């Protein structure tokens, strides 16, 4: 499409599995049809002979026909105005209508009525018409209004609006690459929340912090995926090619009391914000480690993390991080682990440095990576570490010799590892979250509160205090015990 925009005719080769995506993306770029040449089947399973036969006898004909064909532009679609009522019906009818139009994520949504949306808008001083940016691939405008609408649908409370706006500000950043939100690894956004807003909005940063159960964590996590579907237009099967993918992440809030207790810096402060500022960071997660149980002193714990996470599942994605020169794995430690480290004088930076220096893999692993097919092309490598070192893209440790068995770091820069403290204060467990290289790099935004924040929050709390207690403890749920 970039070639067509540059005034040059093009034909694009795609495998059968990518045809629907190619057509859908063509439409989002204004083309009714694009010349596509289909490679039939799944290429990695074809022998070289079959591959050559398919290219030579099937694909080439389509290329010639495609270049000779007339391209048509797609007519512009009409868009309702923000306050237009597009449907009226009871709860079930609204659900059906939204599902039929692919406007929901498969879970029931809260109906976005004008009244509910306006309640969200009270929690920002920004104009509802403000265009925050444009989200690819559908090139839809992300507006303050649409953030509120999707926040309502996700089940958020109105007072979450400043965080939702911060998340939308991340998503529109070109560097975040939302257009790759439908890539085959199937990554999910993860929102990490720091600052006083964590307590203001009653996030769970303790036991079960990453499980659904607390409205702030759950609904804000759901919002991220919903916004990517509705505004970016990432829909499974067409523009979203996540092979298996997984469900949305609940928002992760750091336990800043625990961080302060051990004298560490909060995640947001490590990312350049001042202590006491409320900040939301959004990054991709493409895989999660099993729980890592640790014991002993700091050195033993660090080594266990190296062996269980660094040399475990996160290593599988190191190739991709090196290929794109971007990688931001995230480690979430329970507070008691942070205490052990701090007691022995380790900072977050010390732990990151240890992980960088002690987690190794053979160089061939980083050069061949997940697309390795040595049985088909012996000696084939898709990247050369020594050339990347020469180019200044990697530290010198990656090319201390040319031996393919030499050990090189899995984490290619210590400073790009993130560490967050959360979870059960008394349990010796941590988990690693693998980030997807240049797609969904962690970006942080200051959460901009409305001038009347305290007053509005107080009003919202008062209203709820007069109704059902959202934060009931198990003993107050009205379930009689045996």
């Amino acid at each position, binding site marked *: *499409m970039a*070639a*067509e*925009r*540059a005034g*040059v*005719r*093009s*034909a*694009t*080769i*795609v495998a059968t599995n990518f045809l629907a*995506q*190619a057509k859908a993306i063509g439409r*989002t770029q*204004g*083309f009714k049809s694009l010349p596509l040449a289909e490679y039939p089947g799944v*290429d*990695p399973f074809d022998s070289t002979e079959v*591959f050559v036969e398919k290219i*030579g006898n099937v694909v*080439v004909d389509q*290329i010639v026909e495609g*270049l*000779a064909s007339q*391209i*048509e*532009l*797609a007519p*512009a*679609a009409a*868009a309702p105005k923000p*306050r*237009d009522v*597009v*449907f*009226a*019906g*009871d*709860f079930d009818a*609204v659900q059906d209508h*939204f599902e039929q139009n692919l406007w929901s994520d498969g879970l029931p949504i809260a109906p976005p*009525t*004008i009244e509910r*949306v306006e309640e969200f808008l009270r929690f920002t001083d920004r104009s509802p018409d403000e265009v925050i940016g*444009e989200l690819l691939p559908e090139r839809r*405008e992300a507006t303050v209004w*649409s953030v509120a*609408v*999707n926040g309502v649908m996700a089940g958020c409370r109105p007072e979450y609006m400043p965080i939702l706006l911060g998340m939308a500000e991340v998503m529109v950043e*070109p560097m975040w690459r939302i257009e790759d939100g439908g890539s085959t690894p199937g990554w999910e956004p993860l929102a990490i929340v720091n600052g006083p807003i964590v307590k203001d909005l009653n996030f769970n940063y303790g036991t079960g912090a990453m499980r659904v159960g607390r409205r702030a964590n759950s609904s804000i996590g759901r919002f991220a995926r919903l916004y990517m579907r509705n*505004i970016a237009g990432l829909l499974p099967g067409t523009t979203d090619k996540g092979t298996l993918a997984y469900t949305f992440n609940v928002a992760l809030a750091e336990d800043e009391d625990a961080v302060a207790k051990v004298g560490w810096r909060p995640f947001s402060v490590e990312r350049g914000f001042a202590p006491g500022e409320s900040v939301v960071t959004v990054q991709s997660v493409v895989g999660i480690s099993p729980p890592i149980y640790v014991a002993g002193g700091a050195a033993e714990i660090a080594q266990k993390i190296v062996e269980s996470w660094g040399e475990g599942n996160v290593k599988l994605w190191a190739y991709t991080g090196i*290929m*794109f*020169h971007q990688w931001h794995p995230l480690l979430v430690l329970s507070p008691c682990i942070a205490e052990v480290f701090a007691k022995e004088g380790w900072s977050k930076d010390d732990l990151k440095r240890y992980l960088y220096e002690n987690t190794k893999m053979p160089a061939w692993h980083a050069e061949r990576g997940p*697309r390795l*097919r040595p049985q088909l*092309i012996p000696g*084939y490598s898709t990247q050369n570490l020594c050339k990347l070192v020469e180019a200044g893209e990697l530290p010198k440790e990656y090319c201390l010799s040319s031996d393919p068995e030499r050990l090189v770091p899995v984490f290619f820069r210590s400073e790009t590892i993130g560490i967050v403290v959360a979870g059960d204060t008394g349990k010796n467990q941590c988990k690693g979250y693998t980030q997807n290289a*240049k797609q969904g790099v962690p970006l942080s935004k200051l959460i901009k509160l409305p001038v009347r924040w305290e007053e509005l929050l107080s009003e919202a709390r008062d209203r709820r205090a007069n109704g059902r207690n959202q934060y009931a403890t198990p003993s107050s749920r009205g379930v009689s015990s045996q």
Partner: protein
Amino acid sequence: MKDEPTYEVVWPLGKTSSSAAKVNSPISDLNGKTIGELSVHVTPRDDLMFATIREKLLQRFPDVRFVDSHTFGFLHGPEENELVDRLPELLRQHSVDAVISSMGI
């Protein structure tokens, strides 16, 4: 359900920005034309693929010329955005009349 309220709901999407798409003239005869090869180079067989395409096209259009995919860089790499931005200039620089791109097999 009896007495259930009616919800009047708004649209959850957003308007699309104006399209920059343009229609370029078809090319039915590739003789005398220069074809630029673009690839995301995610599989080790891209070079083999383009070699096969070249061989077949030359049988049908003996006077067609090709600009190798490596000339345009690694479109799925760290410099993707920069390369896409520079593409018009690169295509002009190499007098490319048509592009064959491999974007995901």
